[in-house]
């Protein structure tokens, strides 16, 4: 019974949390807790993977907890199994990383107790099979992750990040709560089975969809609910950031899929449209923000926003196809989305690990104070490079496969009957292509500024390689990125039964395709073979290298950089993060961020330097959130006068209330 084992794993994690409280003070505690988490996650992962591949039947369990007349239901079906696998994979690797990384933690007592609890909460969300348990775990997940975000609470930014995060999170939870209120009805049929059973009318479904987009969307980071994400994810310790970005957003996506695809029944066609619009906006805005950041971890966080957008594009397409009964196309889009879920959890964790390694080695997150790390931390930078290539969707790595599948799904959309959807999908395709290209730019920038060139600060010059555990975790993920890139057929086949169960259609069996290629629709239409591409590139590179070294010269001489004859010793003459982004800022920034560049020249005769100032505006924040905050403050100020009235005035309030009620009872009752 997978569900039982999974629940035992959760229990074990809670036990580890208690252990963390006790052992936080001693040195061994870190290794102990994280090791335990690693083992538990490994177990849970294997269980989930086994269930997924075997395509096993749903295993359910009801415990007499939670709401007494409902009980708390748990269930492992294929969807849950997939997400359990993703979550526990990420969790396990993060724990392994943390065994090494956690040693550098200044305040372990603020991390160790909450980390296992956070893992447990994420597992519980996926296991839950009734509204109460689901929301309880969901909000508990927010809570525990909030505690982790507040781990370094001395920095004012982190406190603010934690505040924004938890408020947004509970906003999302309340939205979901309302959604479940609608789904369950006034009698409170909270069990998912009951919700699935009864049919929901059009209007209700529409409202639920909106609420779920608010709830799950705010957790996943859909624009315009993403504002907390780039604040909170960087604030946490790096292995937690990896979990937040790589895994927790996936749990949010699971919530969306669970409610919209599973509980809500047949969607109406425009549902897909709404999702697609939001998703496209998210993808584009996320990557543009990422391009403007100079804080490495914040850049990664924004790129998470972008990837969430890509995943939701897949989901939106799946919704649209499903609503029109095109089950094959729906299966393609859904597979693409899930595949990207997996991929993103892999390379985003990897990248955050890299950022964490840099942070521990240099104490810096600002790219403009880094550089040249490839010489000092070769392995870490290699792994980070793989991550960058993967997230930039370069073949033969995994990022490309899921994006390729998404493109293939978009190419199927002219068959859709609705004009709006057709045109929208085309536009979405363009946006997707644009953001894919921009991602490549963003990560050239990230890797180039951080790891290449000459060190821009002494700390960067004095950096040292990351520890064994961290490297092991990173390289493991790098290998996984490559494997799932060159052997995508297996992943797709593993997802087959799942898509079958959710969108009533599946991709053709890939195992039968020769040469390990993948054929989403038909041989003549499109096919891709990561394996062969990889082999070809490797072979031709090796071939040329050996040939040249054999037949032509292999001589090599080190010399100062030429730089057109004017080499400048100061590392400050290198391109910085800001200057690298300048061309793109000029192209996109002027519209999206109202970017303005001001050059402040010193007056004639003054030898002072000229200063180039760039001011960017986060319009979402300035147009949506700032006004709300202002409104609340104004209201609070106005009402606050009521604290300073006199007894007579208070009495008159009572008096008026009495008169009012008497009038009511005299006139109406």
């Amino acid at each position, binding site marked *: 019974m997978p569900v039982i084992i999974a629940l035992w794993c959760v229990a074990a994690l809670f036990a580890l949390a208690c252990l963390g409280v006790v052992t936080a003070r001693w040195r061994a505690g870190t290794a102990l807790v994280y090791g335990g988490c690693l083992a538990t996650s490994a177990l849970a992962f294997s269980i989930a993977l086994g269930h997924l591949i075997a395509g096993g039947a749903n295993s359910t369990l009801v415990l*007499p*907890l*939670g*709401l*007494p*007349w409902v009980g708390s239901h748990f269930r492992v079906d294929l969807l849950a199994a997939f997400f359990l696998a993703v979550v526990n994979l990420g969790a396990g690797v993060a724990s392994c990383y943390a065994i090494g990384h956690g040693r550098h933690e200044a305040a372990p*007592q*603020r991390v160790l107790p909450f980390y296992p609890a956070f893992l447990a909460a994420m597992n519980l969300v996926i296991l839950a099979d009734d*509204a*109460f348990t689901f*929301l*309880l*775990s969901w*909000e*508990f997940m927010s*809570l525990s992750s909030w505690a982790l975000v*507040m781990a370094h*609470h*001395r920095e004012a930014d982190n*406190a603010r990040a*934690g*505040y924004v995060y938890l*408020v947004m999170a*509970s*906003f999302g939870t*309340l939205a979901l*709560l*309302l959604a*479940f*209120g*609608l789904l*369950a*009805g*006034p*009698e*409170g049929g*909270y069990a998912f089975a009951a919700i699935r059973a009864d049919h929901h009318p059009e209007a209700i479904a529409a409202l639920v969809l909106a609420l779920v987009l608010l709830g799950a969307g705010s957790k996943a980071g859909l624009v315009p609910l993403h504002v907390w994400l780039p604040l909170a994810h960087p604030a946490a310790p790096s292995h937690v950031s990896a979990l937040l970005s790589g895994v927790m957003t996936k749990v949010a996506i699971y919530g969306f899929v669970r409610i919209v695809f599973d509980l809500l029944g047949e969607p109406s066609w425009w549902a897909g449209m709404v999702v697609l619009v939001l998703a496209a906006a998210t993808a584009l805005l996320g990557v543009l923000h990422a391009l403007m950041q100079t804080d490495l971890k914040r850049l990664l966080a924004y790129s998470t926003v972008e990837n969430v957008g890509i995943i939701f594009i897949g989901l939106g397409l799946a919704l649209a196809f499903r609503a029109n009964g095109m089950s094959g196309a729906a299966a393609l889009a859904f597979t693409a989305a899930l595949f990207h879920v997996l991929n993103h959890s892999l390379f985003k964790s990897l990248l955050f690990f890299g950022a964490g390694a840099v942070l521990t080695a240099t104490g810096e997150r600002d790219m403009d104070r880094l550089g040249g790390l490839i010489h000092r931390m070769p392995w870490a930078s290699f792994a980070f490079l793989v991550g960058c290539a993967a997230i930039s969707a370069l073949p033969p790595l995994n990022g490309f496969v899921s994006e390729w599948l998404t493109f293939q799904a978009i190419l199927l959309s002219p068959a859709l009957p609705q004009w709006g959807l057709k045109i929208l999908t085309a536009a979405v395709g363009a946006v997707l292509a644009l953001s894919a290209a921009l991602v490549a730019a963003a990560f050239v920038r990230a890797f180039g500024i951080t790891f290449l060139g000459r060190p821009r600060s002494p700390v960067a010059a004095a950096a040292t390689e990351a520890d064994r555990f961290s490297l092991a975790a990173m390289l493991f993920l790098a290998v996984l990125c490559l494997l799932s890139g060159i052997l995508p057929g297996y992943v797709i086949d593993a997802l087959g039964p799942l898509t079958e169960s959710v969108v009533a259609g599946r991709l053709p069996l890939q195992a039968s395709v020769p040469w390990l290629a993948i054929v989403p629709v038909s041989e003549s239409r499109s096919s891709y073979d990561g394996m062969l591409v990889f082999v070809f590139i490797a072979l031709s590179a090796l071939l040329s290298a050996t040939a040249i070294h054999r037949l032509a010269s292999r001589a090599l001489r080190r010399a100062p950089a030429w730089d057109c004859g004017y080499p400048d010793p100061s590392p400050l003459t290198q391109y910085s993060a800001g200057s690298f982004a300048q061309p793109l800022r000029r192209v996109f920034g002027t519209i999206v961020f109202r970017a303005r560049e001001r050059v402040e020249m010193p007056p004639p005769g003054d030898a002072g330097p000229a200063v180039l100032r760039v001011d960017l505006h986060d319009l979402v924040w300035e147009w949506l959130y700032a006004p709300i905050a202002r409104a*609340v*403050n104004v*209201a*609070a*100020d106005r*009402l*606050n006068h*009521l*604290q300073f*009235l006199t*007894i007579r005035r*208070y*009495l008159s*309030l*009572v008096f*008026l*209330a*009495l008169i009012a*009620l*008497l009038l*009511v*009872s005299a006139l109406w*009752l």
Partner: protein
Amino acid sequence: MMRIPFGATEAVLLIPLCAAAVLALLPGYRPAARLNVFAAFLTLLAALSLLFGEHPAPGHYLIVDDLNVVFVALNTLVGFTTSIFSASYVGHELETGRLTPAYLRFYHAMYQILMFAMNLALVANNIGLMWVAIEIATLTTVMMVGIYRTHEALEAAWKYFILGSVGIALALFGTILVYVAAEPVIGEGLDAMVWTELVGHAAAFDPALLNVAFVFLLLGYGTKVGLAPLHAWLPDAHAEGPTPISAVLSGLLLNVALYAVLRFKVLMTANEAAVAPGPLMVTLGLVSLVFAAFMLYRRRDIKRMFAYSSIEHMGIIVFAFGMGGPLANFAGLLHMTMHSLTKSSIFFAVGHIAQVKGTQRISEIGGLTETHPLLGWSLVLGVVAIAGLPPMGIFTSEFLVVSSTFARSPLLAILLVFGLLIAFGALLLRLNGLAFGEPRGGTASVKASYAPLFAHLALVFAAGIYLPPQLVAWFRHVSSLLG
């Protein structure tokens, strides 16, 4: 089930009374505090025997039924834990000289009288008696709020006194009206004020008269509940009195007043012709919730802030009862229980915090999790619980209220959610400053008694995950009565 020992109901009343008499004479604070704890403990035992024994037959004056048995138990429990807390608290107050032994004797006696009054109000089967009990409770709390004799304390006490008296007067008028409504049906004399009788014959009462009566009762007892706009006394009384009293006020007295309102709501529901009291309560509840939520933002005094949060939660509870229906009523009852446990535990923490930091000003307290990890984290836990975050009991009740409301009247639910979110934002904002960030304020070590604090939090936590079926049975029965 064991047979109940003779006169447990009376015991719940007599023990505090005798204790009060002794305490009034007993000099020296240590024995007094001990006796105080001991008496509270005995009362708790009696209440527990009520809880687990079967209910005695209702008399003309006293009754124990599903509606009040839980609250009696809760009342005595919190009374007991608070007495433990107050022992360590007043010790510190003596050292700092804010309280003199003479006042302390007075304080302990008053404490027991308050217990007596509240238990009486709970077990009273006679609406007149209930009224008297609540008046006594008001007077005693007024005394205790003013006990520090500072100008603010006196001022708060006076405000509380005047507003409370007016409220009580209104409640009395409502009570008289109920009698007038009952008298033609039941006949003159005591029976017409006995609650069980009233419920039995409520169907035959003049509905219009009941409506007017309920207006007065709602406003009268609502003043004690602290519903906006009748709330004015509450924040200052909490802020200026000794913290144990703040805990008792928020944790118990509000509940007792609300319990009175509930009794009469049952009466209203028993009479079909009478207008459903729902809309009134929903309106008052929402007003209190939203108002208190906004008021939280500008608070500078930590105790006053949590007082406002009490108003907010009373608003939620009254809203729930106003909505009615099995789910909402259940949620309301659960919320009452959870709120009194949580809020009193918060005040325990706040009391010690104010003592170690030497101030109640939020701006001068900071980084508690650094300076006093245990206190700080328990404050965090308490605020997390009161803000309705899982896995605490309040999450359960809020879950039920919101989800059951939205399906019936979306607009109200959205208002409710709005209020909840606003309040959450405010609480979290303050918590950030109090528990995290750079440490501010004194770093003196606490000789606090954490037992009560953790006991309450443990209960709340447990309730968030598992509700004992017995409790559920009681609550469901009561919610069916509440309609």
